[in-house]
C-alpha cells in the first residue's frame, strides 16, 4: 500500500512540475511585457524590470520561481503590486467555493427531481415541460440569465438585492444562474437513465413479485438510475468550485473567476502562473486522494496499478 501511495505521489508531482514549466515558458511568449503602459518611458520601465528581477536570464528566473514555489510562495502580483498571489487566492477562493458548493447542491437536487418527473411522465405534458426547462437551461448563457434575473427579482419585484455577496439573500440569484446549466445536464441524464432501467429484468421481477408501483420506482428504479448521474457530478463539482468569470462578474462576487483572464490581459506573469498552479494542484490533489481511497476500497486497482 505504501508503495502504491508513493507511486501515485510521484506521478502527481511530475504532472504538477510539467504543468508549471510549460506555463512558465508559454506565458513569456505572449507579445508585450507586464510593464507596458501608455505612460511608461524606457528608463522607468528599466527600473521596474530590475525591481522584479526580469533582467536576469530566463533560466535563473525559472529556478528562482521553482524554488519559491517549493516553499509555497507564488510571488507578488505584478498588477496588485503589494499583494502576493497567495493572498489573492486565499481571499478570493472562499467566495468561489461557497458559491460553487451551493450551486452543486442545488443543481443535483433540482436536476434529479426534474429527471424523475420527466421519466415517470414520459411523453406527457410534464415530461415536455421538464425537458423544455432543461433545454432552456443548457442553451441560455449566464450573461443573459444573470441580468434577466436581476431585472425581474431585484428591479421589478424588489425581492432580492441586485448584486454583491453579503448574506443569504445575495446568494440566491447567482446560485440559480450558475447551476442552471448543470441542472439541465443532470435532468436529461437522469431521465435517460430512468427510462433505461425501466426495461431491466429486475424491474420485471419486482413487478411479478407484486410490489406496488411506488415501491418499484423508489426502491429499484431511482436507486439504479442515479448511478450515471453521480458519475458526471465529479467534473461538474470541479468546474463550479473553481470560480466562474461570467457569473461572478455579473453579480459582483469577489471570487477567483476573473483573475486568470485579467492576469493574461495584464500579462501579470506571477498571477497567471499562480492560478495555473492552484487550479492544477487542486485537481491533481483531488485525483491523488481519490486514487488512494480507491485503492483502499478496491484492492484490484492497487495490485494492477503497480
Amino acid at each position, binding site marked *: 500500500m505504501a508503495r502504491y501511495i508513493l507511486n501515485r505521489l510521484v506521478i502527481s508531482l511530475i504532472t504538477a512540475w510539467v504543468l508549471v514549466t510549460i506555463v512558465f515558458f508559454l506565458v513569456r511568449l*505572449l507579445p508585450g511585457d507586464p510593464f507596458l503602459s501608455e*505612460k*511608461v518611458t524606457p528608463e522607468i520601465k528599466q527600473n521596474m524590470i530590475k525591481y522584479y528581477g526580469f533582467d536576469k536570464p530566463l533560466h535563473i528566473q525559472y529556478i528562482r520561481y521553482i524554488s519559491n514555489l517549493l516553499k509555497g510562495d507564488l510571488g507578488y502580483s505584478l498588477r496588485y503590486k*503589494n499583494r502576493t498571489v497567495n493572498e489573492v487566492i486565499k481571499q478570493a477562493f472562499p467566495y468561489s467555493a*461557497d458559491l460553487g458548493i451551493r450551486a452543486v447542491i442545488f443543481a443535483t437536487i433540482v436536476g434529479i427531481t426534474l429527471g424523475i418527473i420527466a421519466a415517470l411522465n414520459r411523453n406527457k405534458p410534464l415530461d415536455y415541460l421538464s425537458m423544455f426547462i432543461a433545454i432552456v437551461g443548457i442553451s441560455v448563457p449566464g450573461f443573459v440569465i444573470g441580468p434577466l434575473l436581476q431585472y425581474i427579482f431585484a428591479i421589478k419585484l424588489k425581492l432580492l438585492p441586485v448584486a454583491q*455577496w453579503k448574506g443569504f439573500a445575495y446568494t440566491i440569484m447567482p446560485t440559480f444562474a450558475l447551476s442552471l446549466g448543470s441542472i439541465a445536464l443532470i435532468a436529461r441524464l437522469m431521465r435517460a437513465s430512468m427510462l433505461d432501467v425501466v426495461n431491466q429484468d429486475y424491474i420485471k421481477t419486482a413487478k411479478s413479485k407484486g410490489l406496488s408501483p411506488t415501491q418499484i420506482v423508489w426502491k429499484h428504479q431511482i436507486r439504479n438510475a442515479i448511478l450515471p448521474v453521480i458519475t458526471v457530478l465529479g467534473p461538474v463539482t470541479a468546474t463550479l468550485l473553481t470560480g466562474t468569470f461570467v457569473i461572478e462578474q*455579473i453579480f459582483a462576487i*469577489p471570487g477567483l473567476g476573473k483573475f486568470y483572464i485579467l492576469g493574461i490581459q495584464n500579462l501579470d506573469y506571477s498571477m497567471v502562473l499562480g492560478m495555473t498552479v492552484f487550479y492544477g494542484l487542486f485537481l491533481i490533489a483531488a485525483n491523488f486522494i481519490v486514487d488512494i481511497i480507491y485503492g483502499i476500497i478496491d484492492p484490484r486497482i492497487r495490485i494492477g496499478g503497480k
Partner: protein
Amino acid sequence: MLRKSLALILTLLLVAGIFTGCSQQSTNQTESKQQQEQLKEKELVFAIGAEVPNLDPQKATDTYAIMIGNAVFEGLVRVYDGKVYPGMAEKWEVSEDKKTYTFHLRDAKWSDGSPVTAYDFEYAIKRLLDPKTASEYAFQGYYIVNGEEYNTGKITDPNQVGVKAIDEKTLEIKLNVPVKYFESLLSFISFMPVKKEFVEKMGEKFAADADKLLYNGPFILKEWKHEQELILEKNPNYWNKDAIKLDRVRIPIVQEVNTAWQMYENGELDFVGIPPEFVEQVKNEGKALFYYDGAEFYLQFNVKKDGKPWLANENFRKAVGFALDREDYIKAVLGGVSDPATRYVLPLLSGVEKKFAEEYPYEFYPKKADPAKAKEYLDKALKELNLSDPSKIKFELLTDDSSRAKMSAEIIQDMLRKNLGIEMTIKQVPFKQRLELMNKSDYDVVFAGWGPDYDDPMTYLDLWVTGGGHNNTGWSNKEYDELIKFAKTTGDFKKRADAMFEAEKLLLEKGPIVPVYFRQRAWTKKDYVTGLVRNFIGPDPDFIYADVEGKN
C-alpha cells in the same frame, strides 16, 4: 466508477472546505447594527469598475487610486474644481525666477496622531524618484532639480535632489525651469506625503490593506475588502473637517456596467455611469449628465514606414483628416457621447488666465467630413508622390481587439473608401501588444489615445518632440522642437502660451497626428446628491465636499 466519482466529489468538497474554512463567517449582526446607524449618517454610495490595484501614493497609477487618494491623503495643495487651494501647506512663496518654492505647513495630524511634517514630504518625493521604488509615475518629479538624473541612475545621492525640509514646518522645492502648472501638479497622488518610519515598518506590505496606511486627508480608509468594497469615513482629525459633510463613503466594486446600472435603478447606488444602450433613454428623461474624462483619441501616422511613402506625406495625412466625418463617427461608435476633435489641444486645459481654448480659439478640422477639401489634399499628395491612382495607396490601421475598436476601425475604413477611394486594412491586437508594436514603430497608422498628466496643453504637445519617449512616429520638426523647448523654459507665461499655440497649429498642419474625438462620459445621479465634481484630470469623481442631504 460510482465510487470513484463519489470519492472525487467528497474530496473536492473537503479540499474546498479546508480552503474556505479560514474565511470570514460574515458579520451579519454587526452589519445590521451598522445599517441602523447609517440611517442617521450621511452616506454616499457609488461603484467602481475594478479593484484598486495599489494605494501606495508613490506607486499608484490608476484612476481609482487617484480618486481614493484625493479623499484619504492631502498634498501640499488641494485642487478643487480646477483651482488650487492650500492643503497641508498653509501658504507658500515663489522666488523671483519662479524656480524655488517655499511651503509653510499647517498643524496637521496623521491618522496615528503624529504630526504631518515637511520631512514626510521630502521623504515621499525622494521615494518617488528613487529607482529602487520603481515608480511608473516617477516622471512627474522630473521637474525638480536632479529628479530625472536620480531616477535614471545618473546620480546616486538623493541629497542632490532639489527637495529639502528646512525644518518640521518648512519645505523647499527647487525646479530646473519655471513650471506654470507646478502648484496644481503637487495635488497629484505621486506627491502625497508618507511617513518614513511607517513605510519602513510595513516594508513590502505598505499600503496593502486599510490598516497598512496612514491618512491625512478629509477621510480615512476604514475598510478595504479587496475586490469587494471600500469604506471611507470622515477623518475627525482633518484640519478642515467642518467643510466635510459626508460621514461615510461606501464604494462597492462592480465590474459590469449593467449590474451597476441595475443597482442604481434599485436604489443601491447614488450615482452611476450610464451604459451606452441606456443613454438615449436617460437623455429623453432629462436626467443624463456629461463630462469630459480628459482622454483624446487620434490617428497616429508612422512617417518612417518602409515602402509606404504616403504616410510621410503631409497632404496625404490632411486628406485623411478632412475625409473623416467626426460627428457621424461619434454617433455610430460612441452613441453620440463625446465631442469631435477639431483641434489637437483638449479644450478644457488651462491657458494663461482662462481655458486655453478660450484664449486661443481654433478649428483646423471640421466636425463633418469635407470631401472636396480631402480630395484636394489627396490630389496634391498624389502629385508629390508621383502616383496616378489613389487605389495604389494602401495602409493598415492598428487598433485594440475590443468590439468597439473594431466598429471604430470599420467606420474609418468606410469613410476613407467613400471620400478618398483608399483601401485601409485593419489589424486588431490585444492592448499590450498594440503598445509593444507602437514602441517598436511597427505599424502604419495606429488608433491611439492620451490622457493629461497635468492641467496644461504641454501634457499633449511635448509628446511629439524629436526623441520624445512616446514619439514613435519618426516625425521630427526643428521648428516644433524649438517652440516646445522655449515654452518649457520661459518664465513669461503669456509668451509660453503663444508658443504652444504655434506648436499646435504646426502639428496639425505638418504633424503625424489626426485628431478624432475628445471623450465624454454619460452619467446620472439621484437628485439629493449635491456638490459632486467630475474632473477631466486628476481625481474623478471628487466627492470630498459632496452632500446627500435628504437621502433617507
